């Protein structure tokens, strides 16, 4: 009897267990409280707004933990992978505006203009932007499952704007890339710069009425003025990018943006004589600067932490004898400086030191730190004191108080990606490049509005006779330096690779040298070329 029982047990028990455990193979990831399904995320408008926030956040932050952890991009240091930090690396470090002393992989090659096809920065930027396109495509697709409402329509329009913005960056940096508007794992085909230009234009024109009215959206989210401003940038570059002059359109959409509710910040909150520095302070979301920010990415020393963004700009630019506490941080990273080429663009109303180097400027935008710094650079690597330092970005507010992070690590300052002053300059340039619909007097007035703010008086004002393209490129440097525009501007003026304009260490030579024209474009990532045979590498790489 006993035997029988045991015999049966050995066959029955296993059989029972066998069948029950097959279902266990379907494990549920949402046992982790941080993990969600598509149904959770697109369950309603409130949840979907969190998905929309990621589309913005992926331009500001680098992962889901902050400041580091669960990164969006792999294969590169997480902080380095932040969008605006890479934009700085590709569009400022490659120019007269900036040098850096660090030995990060591929970093010294940027100012030396000797980057290769597998450069970490050109690769990671491409990946970041492509990822943003994928995030947007997924959001646009999934948002269709939401109940229709004005808010949901605005969500989708904003996602389309962010996708267009990513493509704007892609054709600026890389030219011919795949145009992908649906989530698909199919290896994509390559599209021409013209096709993508057309896509961006069509999208922005379509969404201009779907985005909220000027000033009607909450801070941090774009409205239709952003579409106009981006169109003005797009058209301004059309001649270089697609061989078609679109300056008239540039004027049209610049004018729309200028006539919107946005305004040049004139509020000199800290009373230092210029309302320019307020744009880059820790309270620039409230001190009036926000009225000028058509599209900004938001940071917070506590709630939105990254080692990129303004945390990078404030820390990396501090070193030498600079007092980090004056910038609201606990210490500098001893990296970024500028070349004398930028300093020399502020060659008016200057106070010089005993050895003849400038130390004070009437133009409030000349935010250089000179104490212990050499104007001219002998050594870039590991030598912070070669080259003037720049204090433009800071983590103190208009009252002089540091940001919210009591540890002094992470910065509050928001970073404008498009601000109205740039649109003013776009307008003036388009007029000078013979676009119609604008005029030189209006352009001069816009420029003077910027210069009056910079000087705190009208001593720096110009006449319409002074306003020419040479003036514009230098004025863009003075107004917009370190804001991620410089390379694009130099290319538009034919100065980036050629010998027509040299700056210290351009092309790796101390006195500067021309480099091959192919460096007007960055390479498509070499590892991408390896796995996608549809792609043709940019010439020269």
């Amino acid at each position, binding site marked *: 009897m006993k035997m029988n029982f045991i015999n049966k047990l050995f066959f029955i028990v296993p059989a029972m267990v066998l069948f029950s455990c097959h279902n266990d193979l379907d494990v549920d990831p949402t046992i982790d409280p941080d993990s969600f399904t598509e149904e959770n995320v697109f369950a309603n408008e409130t949840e979907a707004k969190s998905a929309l926030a990621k589309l913005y956040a992926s331009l500001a932050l680098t992962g889901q933990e902050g400041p580091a952890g669960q990164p969006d991009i792999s294969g590169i240091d997480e902080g380095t992978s932040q969008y605006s930090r890479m934009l700085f690396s590709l569009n400022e470090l490659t120019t007269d505006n900036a040098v850096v002393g660090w030995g990060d992989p591929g970093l010294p090659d940027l100012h030396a203009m000797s980057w290769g096809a597998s450069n970490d920065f050109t690769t990671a930027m491409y990946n970041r932007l492509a990822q943003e396109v994928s995030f947007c495509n997924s959001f646009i697709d999934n948002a269709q499952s939401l109940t229709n409402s004005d808010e949901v329509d605005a969500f989708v329009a904003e996602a389309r704007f962010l996708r267009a913005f990513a493509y704007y960056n892609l054709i600026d940096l890389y030219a011919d890339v795949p145009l*992908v508007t649906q989530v698909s794992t199919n290896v994509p085909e390559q599209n021409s710069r013209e096709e993508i230009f057309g896509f961006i234009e069509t999208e922005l024109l379509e969404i201009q009425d779907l985005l909220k009215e000027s000033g009607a959206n909450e801070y941090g989210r774009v409205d239709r003025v952003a579409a106009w401003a981006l169109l003005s940038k797009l058209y301004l570059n059309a001649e270089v990018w697609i061989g078609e002059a679109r300056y008239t359109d540039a004027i049209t959409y610049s004018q729309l943006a200028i006539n919107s509710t946005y305004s040049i910040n004139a509020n000199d909150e800290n009373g230092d004589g210029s309302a320019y520095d307020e744009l880059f302070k820790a309270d620039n979301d409230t001190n009036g600067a926000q009225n000028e920010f058509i599209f900004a990415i938001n940071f917070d020393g506590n709630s939105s932490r990254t080692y990129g963004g303004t945390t990078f700009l404030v820390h990396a630019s501090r070193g030498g004898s600079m007092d980090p506490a004056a910038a609201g941080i606990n210490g500098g990273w001893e990296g970024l400086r500028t070349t004398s080429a930028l300093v020399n663009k502020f060659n008016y109303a200057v106070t010089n030191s005993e050895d003849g180097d400038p130390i004070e400027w009437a133009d409030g935008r000349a935010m250089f730190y000179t104490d212990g710094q050499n104007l001219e650079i002998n050594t870039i690597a590991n030598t912070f004191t070669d080259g003037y330092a720049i204090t433009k970005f800071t983590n103190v507010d208009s009252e002089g108080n540091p940001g919210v992070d009591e540890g002094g690590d992470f910065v509050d300052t928001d970073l404008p990606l498009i601000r109205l002053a740039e649109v003013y300059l776009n307008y003036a340039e388009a007029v000078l490049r013979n676009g119609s619909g604008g005029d030189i007097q209006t352009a001069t007035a816009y420029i003077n509005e910027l210069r009056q703010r910079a000087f705190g008086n009208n001593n720096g004002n110009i006449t319409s006779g002074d306003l020419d393209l040479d003036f514009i490129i230098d004025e863009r440097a003075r107004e917009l330096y370190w804001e991620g525009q410089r390379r694009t501007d130099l290319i538009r003026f034919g100065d980036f690779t050629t010998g027509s304009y040299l700056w210290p260490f351009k092309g790796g030579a101390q006195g500067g040298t021309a480099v091959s024209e192919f460096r007007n474009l960055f390479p498509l990532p070499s590892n991408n070329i390896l796995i996608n045979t549809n792609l043709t590498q940019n010439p020269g790489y």
Partner: protein
Amino acid sequence: MRTLYKALLVLLIAIPSSIYAQESSVSGTVTESTGMPIPGVNVVVKNTSKGAVTDFDGNYTINNVQKNDTLVYSYIGFTTQEIVFVNQSTINVTLEEDSSTLDEVVVVGYGTTAKKDLTGAVNQISTEDFNKGQQNTASQLITGKIAGVNVTTGGAPGDGSNITIRGLGSLQLNNSPLYVVDGFPISNDAVGGSRNPLDFINPNDIESITVLKDASATAIYGSRAANGVILITTKKGKGLDFKFNYSSTTTLYTPTDYVDVLDGDQFRALVNEVGNDAAIGRLGTANTNWQDLIYRDAFGSEHNFSTTGNIGGFMPVRASLGYSDQDGILKNDNFTRTTAAINLKPSFFDGHLKFELNGRGMYNENTFGNRGAIGSAVDFDPTQSVYNPNSTYSPYFTWLNSEGNAQYNLAPTNPVALLNEVDDTAEVRRFIGNAKVDYKLHFFPDLTATVNLGLDKTNSHGRTAVSQALPSTQLDWDGSYSFYENESTNKLFDAYLTYDKDINDHSITAVLGHSYQSFYNDNFSYDSEAEQEGNEFEFIDKYEHVLLSYFGRLNYNFDDRYLVTASLRADASSRLNPDDRWGYFPSAALAWNINNEDFFKSNVIDQLKLRVGYGEIGNVNGLGNYLFLTRYTRSRTNANYQFGYIDNNPNFIQTYRPEAINENLRWEIGQTLNVGLDYALFDSRISGSVNAYINKTEDLISYVTVSPFTNFSNGLNANIGDMENRGIEFEINATPIQTEDFTWRIGYNIALNDNEITNLPDQVETGGINGGTGNNIQLHKEGHSPSTYWVYKQIYDENGRPIEGAYVDRNGDNIINDDDKYLAEDPYADITMGLNTNLNYKNWDFAVVSRVSLGNYNYNNMASAKSYQLRATENSILTNLHADTYNSGFQNLTDGNLQSDYYLQDASFFKLDNITLGYTIPNVFSKDSNLRIFGSAQNVLVITDYDGLDPEIYGGIDNNFYPRPRLYSIGVNLNF
């Protein structure tokens, strides 16, 4: 087996048998020394075909036996006995367990076999051959003993080992072998707070370690066995009388060497020469050897007590207690472990029903000396004193920021402060137990049903308290506290049937079974700083995966000459999508015992076996749990994003990120072909094997570039390439001298392995290094070994000094960038050897273990990141330099200098791992009691050309390495 003895007969002088024979019958019972009956024993009348097999009660009967016939009793794993029949009616026989090599029982997956019946590449090392001296962890016991098995053990107490068997089989997945303890495959995932997943098992409890190297042997374990299998068999109760063992070891650990940095005077001279006034002004007057301050001579001791016996005559039992308390040479580092184990093997119904119960508990307390001190002791200015009573962070000397109110943010932290002011402790509790039931069916005794239930539960708590006194860059610093708790639960259910049948010359063993294993992890952590900031401060991380399998194996043995093994395992992993979830992994092996052929009779050669085996194994070990599912991850509160305001306060909202998804993930498949020859000569005085193998990994999973725009990340794990390992192994164990008083044994093994990625459309950077941000030094690329160094070719001047920034422009475009880097050497040895010897003279025993590794290259990251001259004075502080600054003369830290092949060095080595001398006093208290006293030295000698601290660095990147100490131990071992 019968054939073997038939063959032996030929060698023997014929035993005279009586021609006046009188026929009668004989019966009896065959038992083990424990009194347990042994079923299945062959009883044959020598030189005839007459015989019988014992039944499940160990009983046998043979008719028609003649006087002076010799009865031969043989059973696997036991010494064969011969008894001459002189008309006894009953002959009861007790068989002794056999320790001779060929009949040695070898543990294989879901069963055992005799060594001579093996068809795969399998090594088994038993207690007497284990490495002696102080051994913390199971893997150390076999270091250097087996060809192709490379064990690299860390220098901290309780540290784990990296074990690779026959090179790397995978790029992205786990390359560790599967550990199976008493039939329980354990998870080799790291457990928070624990130093080593094998810590739970006290090496003193281990009876034998079996390494299954080729796929024909491992395939029965299916998907987790791609990197080989290490079967650990613990000691079991034996004998009828209770016996006891006590052993104790006391060990002194001493640092052997320090990283070569400038001393105070050298550093002063350098700064005075190259520094500006500000830098020179920062110089101190001291001569501080910071490394000397963070390391120490450390002591450790361990005590083990065990007993073995039998309860009630039917239940062999073994119980043990172990306690180990060891300090690390890094100050504060301590490892304390208490283990308890019990094993019961009761059997009922005349051996038809057998239980095996294993329970094993561990309580482990770890104090982690702060590892940051290792790097900062190299960095810290040797001209400064440790203490500065006037400092903001009194008493510690600290580099302060310009305001003097916090530590300068780019300064190293005082290493002594790091050790004193950071308190990092953890306790790990682990229970691992299994209950195995074997039931030999009464109505069909050839069939045995086995069920094995197992539970492995680990609970760990850890905390890090950083005191307010630790110099910090944070202005509001008031210390921090973090806490974590991890719980992992692994459950096992195995059920299988074993069919065993001998018919004449044919012998069949078949196994058919099912296995279910689940792995569940629940982690919690808390961070006081986050709480103070008002951020999210409690984190939960939960995940699980499940493995479901069916397996079958057939062993066929014809006349002990031809052996065939075939197996098939079907595995399903929850980590793969339902369509690709099931993998089928077959294997087949043939072996030919040439020595049993009639044409090959030799009184010299005991064994000559030719083996050929082929097997396929899947692998998803170390793969993420849910990669094929659509998932979103929310942001933590530090990574939220501002949308507008609520009541004039910024409104930070959580974000959802879609995760990269790969619906097409499949099994990575390893295919191994192994050809081997086992040999034994001169009564097994010389034995060993030769193996040659090719191991191809197909559908290799690698973290690779995703085509941009097609997914939610730029990289993910995908089945993308192929890899190949080829190698040859040779092993020889010899006993040149064997007399009553003197035995000399010597073992030598050599393995050649060549590892190559044969197909990889992408190239994958790997091997992150210190210096700059985000520099890598290695590359996975088709046509090369994994992790091959990817470097610039340094140009040297006529004096042989490297010229800074001058590299060979390999593509000739007059620009030096990534395109000029080349693939140089790799960190893995081409040839590894082990040489060990044992001498026993009367009561003395002496053992030496040594290893050789050839062709492994290291990247000296300590020199590359810490020797550029500007480092001494950059960033408004002083930082010490690696002494290689005198050789290279490099000024800057650039990505070029860091990635120069100047820092790539041949790290081939010879290591004298272990010398042990022991003396045994027999009958010390009474008969059957003995006492062994021993002394040993470990990590005795290293011969290498490599300039860094230690040439043996897993992965090849020498950076802030915890130095391996030299060990001197004395100990006693008492049996009574």
